[in-house]
């Protein structure tokens, strides 16, 4: 029997555009996409978010917007997904995907963008789109 899946994941969507889907399709390599898919599949089965691997609440401006980060490594890069918990119980909304080397982030405005998107979501100027977890592959 498969273990319980506690969490669902959703992409940030604004004006009909899905920047997480764009990041997934265009900025991640095959390695990165597979790592990201495997990460979400496993993470959804961990009931307490504080026990998610690679999870933490960053300090500073991001914390004010209750933005968390989920780190993973792929193709020699340190990727970071920034997100917030959604209005639906146990829903994690992905706001921005980026990678960094030390304090140099790509894209460089990833944090600002995450804050703007978190604000847009809280003010209901943006929507979400469910991200399907691939249990069949």
């Amino acid at each position, binding site marked *: 029997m*498969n*273990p*319980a899946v506690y969490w669902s994941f959703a992409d940030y969507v604004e004006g009909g555009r899905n920047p997480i889907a764009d990041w997934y399709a265009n900025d991640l390599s*095959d*390695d990165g996409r*597979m*790592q990201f*898919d*495997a*990460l979400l*599949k*496993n993470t959804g*089965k*961990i*009931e307490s978010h504080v*026990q998610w*691997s*690679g999870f933490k609440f960053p300090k500073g401006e991001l914390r004010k917007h209750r933005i968390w980060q989920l*780190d*993973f*490594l*792929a193709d*020699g890069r340190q*990727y970071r997904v920034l997100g917030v918990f959604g209005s639906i119980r146990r829903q994690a909304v992905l706001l921005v995907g980026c990678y960094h080397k030390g304090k140099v982030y790509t894209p460089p405005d990833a944090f600002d963008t995450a804050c703007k998107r978190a604000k847009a979501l809280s003010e209901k100027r943006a929507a979400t789109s469910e991200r399907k977890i*691939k*249990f*069949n*592959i």
Partner: protein
Amino acid sequence: MSERSNLISKLKSDLETRASYIKAKLGVLVPSQIRALRLKSDMPRQADLAQASKMQQSRISMFETPGAANLTLETLSRIAAAFKVGVVVKFVPFSEMLDWENNFSQDQFNVVKLDNDRAFLNPQVVTSQAATLSFYRRPGARPVAWRHSGTVSIDYAIGDFSTVTDRNVQVVHNTSPQESIDPTFSMTFFSPQQVHMSTP
């Protein structure tokens, strides 16, 4: 073509895609196991595990990060040793790897530590020429055993046995399952000298 069909096609034809696929599963599930064991251990801080394994805390942090690179067998062995558990690394079909991934739960994952591992510390080895064990089986269930290369493998059992490999059968409980309808299903091991039994 669906995403799944597309990926399967690439997996069949491309070495790098297969390597990425395998690496992605391992890259999530190995760090997740380390994290689960640490959180359930008597050394829940990364610094404690670092001390027990004689490694830097930054390395422990790295090993718990999904996609962790450079996790060698040497490192895995050292971490397992710190937890007082073993590690099994084996090659399997892709289907088995996917099952492992889908069935894995960090919340439920735990491993009996050496100090409490009665099957390892006090095994009873069967040395007689024949050994017969009883199984309970639901009507219509697949056969529970078949001969394989001179040894016996167990495919499906309910209630009173758990199976390990085709050479190792571990008795976990010795009680009848409440829901059992069938009479017992008996099975004789054809190579009993290769069957190790541990009583609970």
